[in-house]
């Protein structure tokens, strides 16, 4: 708006000297392309339908071309880490839910594991199985949202509703287990808050039986849709070396063909006993590391998660122990610091927890995958079309609650 005001007052008064103008325009014309339109600064967000929350991307555009896309973060900053320094360890669990609110279970898990490592707690086997089941179910739910909203970003409405239909069933399962549908605080330090209800596992199997064929439906409806492929293949390509250089993780990294998954690389919990594959982008529709690859990695990961959950359900009957370790009333880990990272649906979610031996952590620091993945946006969303920006942002799949914390 500023430029308009400015020019309104000056246009009729200050007419640049033709000689100067000639020179400057020649220079500009040498660099740039055809029709010299005005460059515009466009705010995509913080209130924009397709920036997934309150992400603000400032676009420098020339017509439909995006010359520069700068993400601006912080609109959802809630001092989560600072709050962590003022609460007891298990009291911080509900705050982790609210970081990546689409994958609350995984966030709980990451913090719980970090604290357990710090305190040297041993978690019973059954609790570990329950944790894996819930983490993987939440991965499915999170990827469903990601897939659905990605369809929305590209103008396909229906997959979104289908994804939410299935997610709803997962949330029902979660609700049955812990009473909450979004901010679970179910996985906690030492195990899970409560054992799974009777008949839950059967319901879970029923859901998996129902859900597995649906993945094919998503592929028919969206993944292999010609327009969808045209919109995503070869768009926003992140080569493997750039992905590693930017410290990306999760489906964004694997979409670039790098087979890095913390569940395989550092198999904690019972992941070591599970038979599953690390899905990577293979460039089936275009270059390796394009939006379609990143999207499809998530679809494939849902299948793998189903496999893991099935195995867990098969094995949980033989697991020893209860749902929670014996815990002191007030947890006071020995002084020291630890970092623990797990494979969140969006990538490596790690917590650095420093204890000074009191009941309250000295420092809590989260390493969020969305925040790190978002960093590459400017590099990827340069010299693309305006319509590619939602496609790229959507394929990176950020959750602003976790970016801003």
């Amino acid at each position, binding site marked *: 708006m500023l430029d*308009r005001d400015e020019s309104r007052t000056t246009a009729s008064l200050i007419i640049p000297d033709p000689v100067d103008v000639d020179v400057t325009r020649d220079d500009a014309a040498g660099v740039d392309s055809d029709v010299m339109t005005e460059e515009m600064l466009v705010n995509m967000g913080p209130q924009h339908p*397709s920036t997934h929350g309150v992400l603000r991307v400032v676009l420098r555009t020339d017509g439909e071309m995006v010359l520069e896309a700068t993400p601006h973060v912080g609109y959802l900053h809630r001092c989560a880490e600072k709050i962590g320094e003022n609460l007891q360890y298990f009291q911080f669990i509900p705050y982790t839910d609210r970081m990546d609110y689409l994958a609350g279970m995984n966030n709980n898990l990451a913090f719980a594991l970090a604290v357990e490592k710090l305190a040297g707690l041993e978690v019973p086997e059954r609790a570990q199985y329950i944790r894996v089941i819930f983490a993987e179910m939440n991965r499915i739910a999170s990827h469903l949202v990601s897939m659905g909203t990605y369809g929305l970003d590209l*103008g396909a409405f229906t997959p979104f509703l289908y994804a939410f239909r299935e997610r709803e069933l997962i949330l029902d399962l979660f609700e049955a287990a812990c*009473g909450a549908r979004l901010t679970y605080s179910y996985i906690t330090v030492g195990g899970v808050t409560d054992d799974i209800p009777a*008949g*839950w596992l059967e319901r879970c199997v029923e859901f998996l039986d129902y859900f597995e064929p649906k993945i094919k439906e998503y592929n028919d409806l*969206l993944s292999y849709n010609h327009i969808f492929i045209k919109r995503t293949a070869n768009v926003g390509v992140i080569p493997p070396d750039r992905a590693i250089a930017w410290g990306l993780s999760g489906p964004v990294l694997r979409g670039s063909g790098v087979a890095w998954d913390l569940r395989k690389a550092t198999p904690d919990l019972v992941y070591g006993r599970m038979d599953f594959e690390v899905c990577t982008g293979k460039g089936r529709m275009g270059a390796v590391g394009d939006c379609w690859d990143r999207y499809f990695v998530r679809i494939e990961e849902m299948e793998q998660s189903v496999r893991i959950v099935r195995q867990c359900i098969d094995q949980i009957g033989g697991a020893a122990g209860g749902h929670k370790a014996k815990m002191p009333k007030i947890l006071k880990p020995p002084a020291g610091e630890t970092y623990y990272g797990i494979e969140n649906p969006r990538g490596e979610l790690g917590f650095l927890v420093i204890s000074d031996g009191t009941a309250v952590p000295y420092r809590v620091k989260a390493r969020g995958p969305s925040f790190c993945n978002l960093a590459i946006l400017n590099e990827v969303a340069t010299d693309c079309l305006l*319509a590619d920006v939602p496609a790229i942002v959507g394929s990176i799949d950020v959750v602003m609650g976790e970016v801003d914390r």
Partner: protein
Amino acid sequence: MVPAPDYIPLINLPRPIEAVAVIAVYLGFVSVVAMFFIWWERKVSAHMQSRLGPMRVGGWHGWSQSLADGLKLLSKEDLIPDEADRPLFRIAPYLAFVPAFAAFAVLPFSAKFAFVDVSITVVLIFGILALEVLGVILGGWASNSKWSLYGAMREACQIVSYEIPLGLAVLTPVLTVGSLSLVDISIDQGGGIHRWLAFRNPFLFVSFGVFFIASLAANKRAPFDLPESESELVAGFHTEYSGMRFAMFFFAEYAAMFLIGGLAALLYLGGWYDPFGIVLHMEHTPSLVWWAALAGAGIFVVKAFTMVFVQMWLRWTLPRLRIDQVLYMCVKVLLPLACVNLLGVALWAWLFPGGAAQLAVQIVLTVIGAGGAGAFLAILVWAMFFRGRGITVSMLKPWTNLLHRTESK
């Protein structure tokens, strides 16, 4: 060619009164159709997405939802952005709204319900519709919003390009029938499904596809809804509009949906004639002429609604194209195809003025087309009765038990 039934004036009233009556009927119909489509699209999309859609307002399936929305929009504050070009901002919705409704005047519903008796209705209807784009462009520009400006630029770009293949596609039926009058073109298709222009020859068959795609783009319907693509441009050209002015853009789009469906029916799908030649027979039986007119209008409306349904179906199925792909599609796919069709139709008329070859081709194409339509209906019935319902109800019901937490084992 089948001789045209004689034109008899609709009612023997003084001219001005007849005009007023006709205008009243037309405006009523157009408004009701636009509102019905808004409700219908919500229901269609809902059922495609295993939802129910509007269910509350007015009783049965929320039938008066559009009415309630209209009232709500009427009573909303009419916001005008501070820096907007106020006169243009105000006039733009009307510029979009009036042509969409005016074009109905030249749309014949059946041989007797064709109120504007000019010989060039095809050209006229596109002439009137061509004005609609200006409303959108000006609305987008006058809003003084960058998103709106993008919407306006895209609209200008898209419409100006797609009018060419659209026009060329429309020329093929015109060339085949030898008339620019929608009534004449329609009358030529009476007497059975094999007479329908889409099934006359392969070029017209393809031309129907070109026409339909180009008309989608010209009406900025998905997957060509770039001017208002909500995931990229917030709401495109009507980002800054609220209340009734917004509703006018909305109305214009839905009215134009019917126009496009109606044009597809008139130009390619046999106009107001049924697939078995019954209406034609009735038209030539003096005692049944009026029944023929009524039945024809009904059939025409059904055909137009079917085409509108297809537009909705596409919208809720397909992702959106990108602007370069939209233009690629126009210039490198539809435009050559339309040119080839035009040439092909001319050659066809020259090579096969009639006879066995023509009839054989007609029969083959009719079988293909009717088979396609049958498959479409089958899918529809299947989806309605066996698919959408089974999932939600049977899956969700037993789950409610789980809400009561049971003892852990």
